[in-house]
């Protein structure tokens, strides 16, 4: 209670200081008057009475001060004085202050921006209620690989109701064609049961969700995704009851989803439509993708155990299911949404912490240098009665003020940086919409700034205290201060080496991964993918419809101005969509074990258009059609693996297909083309002619003479001239696809690179600051040396030697530390080991160089010292 009272008293005193002073004066004046009046009544003359009163009182000034002391809120008042003094120092040392402000701003901006990533993706709660209770239902086979295809009958049993389950829903991704005034577009849909909204605990922001009845009847209602509502319907507030035609059927829009909601889909679905789950199975299969919300307080394990009991009961009685060894499991929705970026983000976060440490060390070095120059002033303060604690507070306030200004600038800068990162990362990582400068990030930034300021000021302050409070030993104190500064600078160089090594490893891996020469042409190759299933002429009777369609469209496309040639393949590279063929080689030493190869159906001109060179034999010709013998072309890897040491041309291989086995003859061998992996592993590839098969997927590769993006529209029209209204999947080009495929690695390399750059910049500033201050302090010594005959070159050499010493020490320690830490990064590295010698060596050399360069300016300063001037000072 006493403390509260005291606090209130002090706060009041703080704000009404002048009035309090006036009051006190009045009170004391009153006392003296009464005392003097008393003496006058006793017969003293007025003047003497007043003197007597004053004497009885004791020193008025002294007691006035004592009263003020009682009133004074020591720390707050002192802080105000200190801040004022700190601001004055800023004016006195503008260069120094600007340096510190810049460093803090840079460091805090980098840290805040990165932390916004970590906070947004990992820490911000998911946009639905109690996300920890939401799981996706999976079936885990004995090998441990989970599958999202959950048995329908088990799902229905759960849907019927259970105490452990609050709600369960099924979803299925889909596609639908929407006609926008003659231009059909393929939109992404998500089919969901009506309980989906309950499972995720969300509700449409406009309109309503579907009812169970509507889902049952597959009623023509649809809820728009928020992004689709904004981009396609102009965020029309009166959207409810508008109609849209999906696959030709008119649907009513009944609501709009909240922004950013896409559950575990990789991209936000454009439309949400009702899903009907029946005993016959949804979409002609007996599995569903299902999500579940457990009741409050139910543990994941108990729920899984319960699921296992129903599942086994059901599956044993059902002869259709053939995977009785699989058991149901729950996958927390969070893991599915956030994805596997956790590790990368944590590495980034560690880098952030290192940078903060660096900034603190930097600030400390700077202040150390300056306080050693202020030894005299500090000594005077001590002589005037400042306690050690008081001095500590003063020095810490000075550093905190500077870092606070820098921090504020840094936070302001990070506002733009976060927006930039959000734009860059939006297709790389999930949940980028949650990456903002929110309270968590601000709190982190402010705390970081304060800690940096305090630590930065504490180190020099503590050092100052340890030294003798004797003004004569100023030079001794300077030496000790210098030693600590050197340690700090070495520490900073060490940290920046660690960061640079990390960034270097990531970047090197990224460069290796970048398909700069994947083995086929990337430039000027437009791609057009079509959805063959929607081709009207496709039916069971016309199996060759795809072939004819491909031929006609290719011809039409060739007529487009700017097109050189058109080839067809079934699976585009780098898309992650692959088709594996099972191959058996009769007569192979390892008999019985089938080989797998990536397969593709291609037209004869494919190898020309893609510029994949032929090594042996021939490419496909129009003669390789239905009437001819079945042909195949393999790549070099397949050739050397399947017929080691022999010529593959003319040899037979067997293709195992669901429809039966097929025997083919190898007619050609082509160079390896890295179509399916973003790394350099060699994989067997096999090609078959389109004319001898019926592809279910088609992509046109168009060799253009101009920028492929310019022809996109014309190419689409060519397709529609053959099959009007046919939905076209994506129209892009190979170069873009390749670029996109490495976006995640690129993103992280870039981020780490920025850190490393910041770190190196800070270290350079540190070396510069330290040496420059040393020159200023040791001016007298330099003057003496010069007077005694040392040439400017020699002086310069002294400086460089110091820089080399600092640099070498820092780099050696840094390399050792980086070596120890880099194995934690191993999981993130592709194509590069964590102890890559080149990266380490290059980093070491680079940082050393930077340290020496940073010494240039001080070196120049030193050679300019006028011995006469400095000796006189």
């Amino acid at each position, binding site marked *: *209670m*006493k403390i509260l*009272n*005291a606090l209130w*008293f*002090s706060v009041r005193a703080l704000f009404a200081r002048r009035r309090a002073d006036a*009051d*006190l004066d*009045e*009170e*004391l004046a*009153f*006392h003296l*008057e*009464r*005392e003097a*009046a008393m003496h006058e009544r006793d017969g003293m003359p007025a003047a003497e009475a007043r003197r007597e009163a004053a004497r*009885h*009182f*004791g*020193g*008025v000034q*002294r*007691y006035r001060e*004592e*009263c003020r*002391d*009682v*009133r004074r809120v020591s720390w707050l008042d002192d802080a105000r004085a200190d801040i004022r003094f700190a601001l004055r120092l800023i004016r006195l040392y503008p260069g120094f202050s600007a340096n510190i402000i810049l460093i803090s701003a840079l460091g805090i901006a980098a840290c805040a921006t990165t932390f916004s990533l970590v906070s947004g993706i990992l820490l911000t709660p998911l946009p639905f209620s109690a996300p920890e209770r939401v799981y996706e239902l999976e079936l885990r086979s004995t090998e441990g690989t989970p599958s999202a295809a959950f048995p329908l009958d088990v799902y229905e049993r759960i849907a019927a109701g259970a105490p452990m389950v609050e709600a369960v829903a099924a979803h299925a991704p889909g596609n639908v064609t929407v006609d926008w005034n003659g231009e059909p577009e393929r939109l992404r849909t998500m089919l969901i049961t009506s309980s989906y909204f309950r499972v995720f605990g969300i509700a449409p922001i406009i309109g309503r969700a579907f009812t169970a009845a509507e889902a049952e009847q597959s009623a023509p209602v649809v809820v728009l995704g928020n992004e689709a509502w904004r981009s396609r319907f102009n965020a029309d507030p009166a959207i409810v009851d508008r109609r849209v035609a999906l696959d030709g059927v008119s649907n009513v829009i009944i609501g709009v989803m909240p922004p950013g909601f896409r559950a575990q889909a990789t991209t936000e679905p454009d439309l949400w439509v009702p899903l009907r789950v029946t005993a016959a199975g949804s979409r002609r299969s007996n599995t569903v993708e299902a999500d579940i919300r457990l009741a409050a307080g139910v543990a994941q394990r108990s729920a899984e155990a319960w699921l296992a009991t129903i599942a086994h009961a059901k599956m044993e009685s059902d002869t259709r299911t053939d995977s009785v060894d699989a058991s149901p499991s729950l996958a927390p929705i969070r893991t599915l949404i956030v994805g596997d970026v956790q590790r990368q983000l944590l590495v980034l976060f560690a880098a952030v912490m290192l940078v903060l440490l660096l900034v603190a060390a930097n600030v400390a070095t700077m202040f150390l240098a300056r306080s050693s120059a202020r030894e005299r002033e500090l000594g005077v303060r001590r002589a005037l009665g400042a306690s050690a604690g008081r001095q500590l507070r003063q020095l810490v306030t000075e550093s905190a003020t500077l870092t606070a200004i820098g921090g504020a600038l840094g936070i302001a800068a990070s506002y733009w940086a976060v927006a930039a990162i959000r734009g860059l990362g939006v297709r790389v990582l999930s949940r980028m919409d949650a990456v903002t400068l929110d309270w968590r990030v601000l709190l982190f930034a402010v705390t970081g700034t304060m800690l940096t300021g305090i630590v930065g000021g504490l180190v020099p302050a503590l050092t100052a205290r340890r030294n003798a409070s004797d003004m004569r030993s100023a030079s001794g104190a300077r030496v000790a201060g210098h030693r600590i500064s050197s340690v700090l600078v070495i520490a900073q160089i060490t940290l920046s080496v660690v960061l640079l090594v990390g960034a270097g490893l990531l970047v090197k891996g990224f460069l290796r991964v970048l398909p700069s020469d994947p083995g086929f042409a990337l430039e000027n190759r437009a791609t057009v993918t079509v959805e063959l299933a929607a081709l009207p002429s496709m039916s069971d009777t016309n199996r060759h419809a795809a072939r004819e369609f491909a031929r006609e469209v290719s011809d039409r496309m060739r007529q487009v101005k700017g097109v050189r040639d058109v080839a067809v393949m079934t699976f585009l590279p780098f898309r992650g969509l692959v088709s594996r063929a099972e191959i058996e080689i009769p007569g192979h030493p390892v008999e019985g074990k089938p080989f797998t190869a990536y397969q593709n159906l291609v037209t004869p001109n494919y190898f020309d258009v893609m510029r994949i060179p032929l090594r042996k034999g021939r490419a496909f010709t129009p003669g390789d059609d239905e009437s001819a013998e079945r042909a195949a072309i393999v790549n070099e890897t397949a050739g050397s693996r399947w017929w080691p040491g022999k010529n593959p041309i003319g040899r037979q291989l067997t293709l195992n297909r669901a429809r039966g086995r097929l025997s083919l003859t190898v007619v050609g061998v082509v160079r390896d083309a890295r179509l399916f992996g973003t790394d350099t592993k060699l994989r067997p590839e096999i090609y078959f002619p389109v004319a001898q098969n019926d592809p279910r997927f088609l992509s046109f590769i168009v060799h253009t003479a101009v920028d492929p993006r310019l022809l996109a529209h014309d190419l689409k029209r060519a397709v529609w001239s053959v099959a009007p209204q046919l939905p076209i999947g994506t129209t892009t080009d190979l170069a873009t696809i390749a670029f996109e495929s490495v976006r995640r690695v690129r993103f992280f390399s870039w981020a780490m690179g920025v850190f490393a750059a910041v770190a190196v910049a800070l270290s350079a500033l540190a070396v510069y600051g330290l040496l420059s201050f040393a020159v200023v302090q040791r001016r007298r010594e330099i003057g003496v040396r010069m007077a005694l005959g040392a040439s400017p070159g020699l002086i310069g050499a002294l400086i460089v030697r110091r820089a080399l010493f600092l640099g070498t020490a820092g780099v050696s320690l840094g390399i050792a530390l980086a070596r120890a830490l880099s194995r934690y990064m191993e999981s993130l590295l592709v194509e590069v080991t964590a102890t890559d010698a080149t990266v380490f060596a290059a980093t070491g050399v680079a940082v050393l160089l930077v340290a020496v360069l940073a010494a240039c300016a001080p070196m120049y300063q030193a050679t300019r010292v006028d011995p006469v001037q400095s000796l006189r000072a």
Partner: protein
Amino acid sequence: MTDRALEGRQSALDMMVLKALSIEGMHGWGISQYIQRVSRDVLQINQGSLYPALHRLERDGYIRAEWRQSENNRRARYYSLSAGGRRQLQAEHRDWLAFSQAVQRVMQA
């Protein structure tokens, strides 16, 4: 003067101020006159030291202050005892008695 000795002097003064205010509310000068009178002029405290004491007691919440018109129509700051102050007075008085009795015993031994 070391902190501890000062404490001893201060607490005696504080206690007497509280006692004075427990009789009736008065201003600073009135308190000094009261102490002088009642102690039969034995205690000639430096009147100035009263004011820091009053500020301390006010800060700690044992007394309250307000401006009032004094006897000679001048504005003066009048102090009064709070409930906490009353309790504090009793406590300090108890401690002081114990202290002086102990000293007495030692001197008479």
